[in-house]
């Protein structure tokens, strides 16, 4: 599945996207925990940036939502357009 990062989260991680493979389905917070354990950059970014928001296939969801390999997950700080 594709994971997209935006704004301060993208800068802190140092890249705009990842592609990972998951078996069946997983909750978003489980994926984030795995990323945090895999690399200190992720750990720092996900710990430092508060109030992160999550979207699956462009719909806002919470981090207890399930995702599969077919989904596009986006993670970002609260938006500030307009």
């Amino acid at each position, binding site marked *: 599945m594709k994971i997209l990062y*935006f704004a301060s989260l993208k800068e802190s991680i140092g890249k705009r996207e990842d592609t990972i493979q998951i078996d069946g389905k997983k909750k978003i917070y489980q994926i984030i925990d795995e990323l945090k354990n895999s690399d200190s950059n992720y750990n720092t970014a996900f710990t430092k940036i508060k109030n992160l928001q999550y979207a699956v296939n462009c719909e806002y969801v919470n981090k207890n939502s399930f995702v599969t390999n077919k989904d596009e997950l986006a993670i970002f700080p609260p*938006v500030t*357009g307009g």
Partner: protein
Amino acid sequence: MKVIFQKQNFVIEKQISLFSKTNKINEGAIVLFVGKARHKYKDKKILSIDIELYEKMAIFQTKKIIKNLKKKYNILDYLLIHRFGKIKPGENIILILVSSEHRKQSFGFSEELIDWLKVKATFWKKEHFSKNSKWVSQKESDRKLIKT
């Protein structure tokens, strides 16, 4: 009825002129809202801002918001332009033009649209100062304006 996300600035007068030329049956009011880039953050001079965009989701969320607001306010036409990329202080960021039979429909639509965009549309602003840069934080007051 158009949503446009673009890098380049827009000319307000030209957009009003084009929008008001299209004849709509029983049009009685047109409302315009323009959001502009400020020159200062507190006492610090802003040199420029960058707006990052997640385009696919911004389109999806904006269309969803507009679909609901069209039902609520029964408007006749709208144009939304939101810029992204590098923007200088004083330049335009966003334009909303709405037309309806009566003024309250257009006022209501434009006000609610900008309120929703501020907390749902996937744009992020970064302000550049002479010595540093800072991502803009979402305002608590903006979050309170919408009922999710």
